């Protein structure tokens, strides 16, 4: 399909661009004839040529000029030009005979007959102009497509990079968990075994989910549950979790490990820093095609201001921006006694 014919707006602009050509044509060739006759004959013909000129696109496509101007290309355009002009003249003949039949007073046939040759030449020149403009259009579209491809590639690469970064689990989580297992081995062997299984499941899921491009939110939430369950073994009664998740949000597809760094932050920078611990709140809601995930944790009001959770949040923001553009949003609400992150992304399922 011709790129100008795809959109009504483009076609409108194109025809508007033809208006001066048609005007010049009518004024130039209509000189010496009655204005009414000139308008009746040349204005419709001018606009007809606007469409004939579009055919230059197909010629340009089969005869590209990437590698100079070979003889074949010139030949193809010469043939096309003659054909286009001839078609125009034939159309004109049909049109004026129709006019003569309807309104003999206009004397359209005689006017047209005397202008055939200049019309043929003008047609040829206009066709060459159209061909030149189409080459320009093709080059422009080509560079735009290349730009888009490059952008898509960089988004993919960036996301892969971020996922790889995310998959690098904080090793201290592992060391602390292993220390808990070491403690439980004698104190509560059954619990030690449970903890081993939990840890293995969590690690397996992290690896598996991290390798996919999109996962259902339910999977991400289950990973968070596993992580928090392991941390609860370590933190005991200091860690509480409240989850309010909309079952309709479960099937939404989200980038993997989107929530995980937030959950880790909530433990490390929130609960870990509080003598009496607190409750981590996880909420997910779906409103039509909009998905909102919120995570809130209490924190120490006397914490040093240079809190180290900046990197995780930066990565999250970058991922949301590269993947969802203006449709995604990360909001951070930091209060003395609580920290809240809200992620809004479109829900694809």
């Amino acid at each position, binding site marked *: 399909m011709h790129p100008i014919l795809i959109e009504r707006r483009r076609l409108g602009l194109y025809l508007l661009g033809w208006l001066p050509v048609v005007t010049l044509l009518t004024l130039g060739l209509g000189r010496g004839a009655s204005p009414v006759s000139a308008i009746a004959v040349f204005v419709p013909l001018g606009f007809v040529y606007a469409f004939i000129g579009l055919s230059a696109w197909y010629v340009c496509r089969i005869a590209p000029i990437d590698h100079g101007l070979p003889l074949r290309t010139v030949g193809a355009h010469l043939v096309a030009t003659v054909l286009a002009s001839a078609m125009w003249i034939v159309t004109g003949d049909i049109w004026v005979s129709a006019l003569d039949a309807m309104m003999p007073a206009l004397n359209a046939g005689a006017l047209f007959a005397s202008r055939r040759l200049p019309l043929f030449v003008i047609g040829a020149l206009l066709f060459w102009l159209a061909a030149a403009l189409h080459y320009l259009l093709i080059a422009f579209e080509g560079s735009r497509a290349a730009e888009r491809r490059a952008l898509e590639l960089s988004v993919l690469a960036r996301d892969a990079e971020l996922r790889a970064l995310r998959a690098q689990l904080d090793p*201290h989580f592992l*060391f*602390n968990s*292993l220390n808990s297992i070491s403690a*439980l081995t004698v*104190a509560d062997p059954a619990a030690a075994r449970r903890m081993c299984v939990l840890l293995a499941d969590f690690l397996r899921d992290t690896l598996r989910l991290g390798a996919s491009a999109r996962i259902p939110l339910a999977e991400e939430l289950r990973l968070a549950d596993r992580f928090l369950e392991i941390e609860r073994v370590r933190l*005991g009664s200091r860690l509480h979790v409240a989850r309010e998740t909309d079952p309709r949000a479960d099937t939404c597809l989200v980038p993997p490990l989107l929530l995980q760094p937030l959950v880790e932050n909530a433990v490390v920078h929130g609960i*870990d820093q509080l*003598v009496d611990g607190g409750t981590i709140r996880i909420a997910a809601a779906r409103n039509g095609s909009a998905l909102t995930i919120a995570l809130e944790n209490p924190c120490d009001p*006397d914490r040093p201001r240079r809190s180290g959770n900046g990197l995780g949040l930066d990565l999250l923001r970058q991922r949301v921006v590269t993947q969802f553009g203006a449709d995604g949003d990360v909001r951070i609400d930091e209060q003395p006694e609580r920290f809240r992150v809200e992620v809004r992304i479109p829900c694809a399922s």
Partner: protein
Amino acid sequence: MRVVIVDDEPLARGVLREFLLGHGDVEVVAECANGFEAVKAVTEQRPDLLLLDVQMPKLDGFEVLELLDGEIDVIFVTAYDTYAIRAFEVHAVDYLLKPFPAERLAEALDRARQRLTSKAKPAQGFAADMRAERAPLDRILIRDRGDVHVVPVQKIDYVESQDDYVSIRTGGKSYLKEQTMGDLELLLDPSAFVRIHRRYLLNVARLSKIALGAKDSHVAILADGTELPISRSGYARLRELL
């Protein structure tokens, strides 16, 4: 050997307790879940050795040690290997990485016993140099016998020197800390605190205006109306900063 265990995780304390059972000469006199409890326990129990976690709420292991200022030997027990050099700097007896085997703890305890019998006094006076060459302080810790006060530096109005002590004034309250004015001044952000007088270190954010005093001298008037004298060189330093 009387030992205090400090770790915010119950299971981590459990491992230590379990491993210590094998050492007949070791008595666990207290178990603490945070730094405040640790300072209190050390003040009250006077133990020989502290088994100390680093990452804890409110006060970290190093802050606990700074408050205790060399009163006691310490073995750090942590999942982080990044603090090993700092631990060395504060003359820690040993540095255990979680998880560790019972033999490793036994080794550390041997070292502690050696240090106790050789009567080498626990490291002293490192509190000041352990902070040197680090970012400016963001809070000041004050030990009041068994209790600990934490004062964020931005809440300080001014500091007054009193011989070997400094009096830290914040919102009408004052805390006495055993530290010289010169040492404290080095630890604070020089763009926020100015020595306006031999005896006064001012938080510039509290300065309301500078008035003319008697004999060409200047007086700093704080937001709450307090008046502090400004020395000639103090005035120059203040002018330079403002």
